[in-house]
C-alpha cells in the first residue's frame, strides 16, 4: 500500500498544452476517479503516473521513490486497459502469471498465486481457457486478476468498463469496489461517466483542459461545485447571474436571491448554480428563494419528471421532480419554483 504523488507535472504536445502543472496526492488505499470530458488530460495524467508518457517537467513519486525517470516496466504498477489487452496466444493462467514470471516467480508458487487471483475475481478454474473463449465481462475480470496478482504499488484503470453494456458494467463496478477494498490497493480510475465516478470513489477529481478543477469527496464535489464547469459537467445545473448587494444577489430581472456560500464583495458580478433536483414547485409564501416561470417542455423519464422552463426574462431553467403522481402539469403552465439558500452555490466562471 503506497501513496502516489505528482508534483508540478505538465505535458505539451507540439503547441498544444495537454496537462498544465498538476500537483496532487492519491492517498494510500484510496480510490480516486479522474473525471472529465475527452481532451481534459485525464488519460494523459494516468499514463504519466504509469510511465508511458514522460512529463515535460515535474515529479512523480510512488511511495517514497521518485519514479519520474523510471520506465514503465520498473514501476511495479498494475494496469487495466479499456480493451482488456489480454494476450490472445496465451491461456488465462499464462496471462495472469505473466507479471509474476517477470518478477522471478514461477512454478508451483506462481500457480498458487494465479489460482488465488482468479478466485478473487470469481473465475476459479478458468486457468486453462483462452481469451477467445471468454465473454467481455470475463475477460475484464481476468485483466483485473492479472493486474492485482503482482501486488502492485498502485492500480491504474483506463476506462476499463466503457466497453461493457449497462448491466454488466454495474456488476463489474460492484466487483471492482469489493476487490479494491479487500486488497487495499491505491487506485486511480479514469472515466467520463459521472455516475461511475460518484458511486465508486473515495475522491473525485474533475479535470478540464489539463487542469484539476476540483478534487474532493463525491458528495462535496457534487453538492458544492467550485466552478461553472464542475457544476455543469457533474450533474445538471441552473445558472443565475447577478450582482452582489448586501449579502444577497440581485438578478437582472430585479429579484433577489440568497446563498449560504461565501460571496464576493458588494458590487461584483457573481454566478450562482442551483441543481434542478433541489428545486420544487411551490405555492403561496415561501421560506428561501423563489422564482416564477412558465413550462416550455415536459419530459416523462419514468421515475423522474423533467421540466424545461423559462422565466419572464427568458432565462432558461430546469427542474427535476420525483414522479409521485404522474404527469400533472403541461406545457404553458405558469408555476413558482422554490429552493433553499443552502443549495445555491456561488461558482467561478
Amino acid at each position, binding site marked *: 500500500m503506497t501513496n502516489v504523488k505528482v508534483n508540478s507535472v505538465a505535458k505539451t504536445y507540439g503547441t498544444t498544452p495537454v496537462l498544465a502543472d498538476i500537483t496532487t496526492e492519491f492517498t494510500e488505499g484510496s480510490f480516486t476517479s479522474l473525471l472529465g470530458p475527452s481532451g481534459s488530460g485525464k488519460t494523459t495524467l494516468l499514463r504519466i503516473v504509469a510511465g508511458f508518457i514522460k512529463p515535460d517537467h515535474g515529479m512523480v513519486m510512488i511511495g517514497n521513490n521518485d519514479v519520474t525517470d523510471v*520506465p514503465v516496466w520498473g514501476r*511495479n504498477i498494475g494496469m487495466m486497459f479499456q480493451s482488456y489487452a489480454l494476450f490472445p496466444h496465451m491461456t488465462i493462467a499464462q496471462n495472469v502469471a505473466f507479471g509474476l514470471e517477470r*518478477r522471478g*516467480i514461477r512454478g508451483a508458487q506462481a500457480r*498458487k498465486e494465479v489460482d488465488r487471483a482468479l478466485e478473487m475475481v470469481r473465475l476459479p478454474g478458468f486457468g486453462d481457457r483462452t481469451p477467445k473463449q471468454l465473454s467481455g465481462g470475463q475477460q475484464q475480470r481476468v485483466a483485473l486478476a492479472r493486474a492485482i496478482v*503482482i*501486488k*502492485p504499488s498502485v492500480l491504474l484503470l483506463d476506462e476499463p468498463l466503457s466497453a461493457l453494456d449497462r448491466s454488466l458494467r454495474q456488476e463489474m463496478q460492484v466487483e471492482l469496489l469489493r476487490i479494491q477494498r479487500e486488497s487495499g490497493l491505491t487506485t486511480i480510475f479514469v472515466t467520463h461517466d459521472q455516475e461511475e465516478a460518484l458511486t465508486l470513489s473515495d475522491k473525485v477529481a474533475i479535470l478540464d483542459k489539463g487542469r484539476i478543477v476540483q478534487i474532493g469527496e463525491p458528495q462535496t464535489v457534487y453538492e458544492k461545485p467550485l466552478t461553472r464547469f464542475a457544476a455543469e459537467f457533474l450533474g445538471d445545473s441552473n445558472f443565475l447571474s447577478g450582482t452582489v448587494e448586501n449579502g444577497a444577489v440581485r438578478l437582472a430581472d430585479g429579484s433577489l436571491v440568497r446563498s449560504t456560500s461565501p460571496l464576493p464583495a458588494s458590487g461584483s458580478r457573481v454566478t450562482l448554480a442551483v441543481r434542478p433536483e433541489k428545486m420544487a414547485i411551490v405555492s403561496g409564501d415561501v421560506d428561501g428563494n423563489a422564482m416564477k416561470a412558465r413550462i416550455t417542455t415536459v419530459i416523462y423519464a419514468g421515475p423522474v419528471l423533467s421540466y424545461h422552463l423559462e422565466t419572464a426574462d427568458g432565462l432558461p431553467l430546469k427542474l427535476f421532480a420525483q414522479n409521485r403522481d404522474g404527469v400533472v402539469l403541461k406545457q404553458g403552465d405558469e408555476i413558482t419554483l422554490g429552493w433553499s439558500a443552502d443549495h445555491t452555490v456561488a461558482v467561478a466562471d
Partner: protein
Amino acid sequence: MQNDQLTLASARGPSGPRSRRVLPAWVSTTALLLPTYGWLTIAVFLPLITMFVFSFLSATPMGKAPIVFTLKQYRAFIDQPYLVGIGITSLLIGFWTTLFCAVLGFLAAVALVRSAFGKTREMLLILILLPFWTNGLVRVFSWTMVLRENGFLDSLLHMVAPDAGSIGFLYTRYAIVVGLVHGYLPYMILTCYIALVTIDDAIIEAASSLGARWWTILFKILVPLAAPGLISGAVLIFIPVIGSFMEPRILGGRVGVTMGTVIEDQFTQAFNWPLGASLSFTLLAVVLAIFATFSGVLRRGTAA
C-alpha cells in the same frame, strides 16, 4: 511466510536494476533498418545511379578504351528517327492494353461486388488473382498455343467449319495486346474491387429509391466513386506494359518491336550499353512523370 518472495519482488520492482538502463531508440531502429536499406542501395539505387552515369558514355567501357562523356545517347530519338515510331508503338500498346483492362476489369469488379457474396466471392477472387502470381512467361507462352496457326483457336474453328482458313493471329500487334491484357487484367480487377468494396450499399439503394436505373448508377455513381481504383490500376498497368519486351517478342515475333525490346537488344545483341541506358532512363522519366501526376490518387487507391 508464503508472501515473502512476492513482497520482496514487489518492493524491488520487476526485472531488477537492469530495467533502469535503456538504449536510445535510434540505435535499435537503425540496426533494424540498415540491413534492408543497405541491401536495396546496393541492389537498386546504386545500379540506377550507375546506369544514369553510363547513359552519358559514348561507348560501352571495355578494357583499356578511353571513357568519353557525351550527350549523344539522349539525342537518339533525333539521330535515329525510327525510334520515334517505336516509342509511339509502345505507347499505343500501353494505351490499348490499359483501356481493355479498364473496361473488362472494372465490370468484373462490379460483378464481384454486386453478384458474388461470402465464400463464393472469396473463391472467385482467389481464382482470378491466382494466375497473376504465377510466372508471366509461362502465361505468355500459353497464348502461343491458342493463337498460333492450328492452335486452339483454329481447332475450335475447324470443328464447325473444317475448310476455313486460319484465324490464328499470333505474331501480330493484336496478339501482343491480348497477351498483355491477359497478364495484367487481374491487377485492374483487384484495384477496382478494393475501391468498390468500400462503397456503402446504402448509397446504391438510395439512388434506386430516387429512380435511377442501372446505367445511371453505373456511370454516375460507381465509376466516379471507383475512380481511384481505376486510376491506380491504369497507372500500375501502363507502366510495366510500356517497358515490356517478353510479350512483344514472344507474341509479336518480327512485328513485336517496342521500346522494351530495343532496350533489351542493346544489352544482349548490340552491346551498346550507353544507348540502352539512355533509353532506359528516358523510359524511367516517363514512368516517374506518370507517378508524379497521379501520386495523390495512387496513395489513396492502393492503401493496402
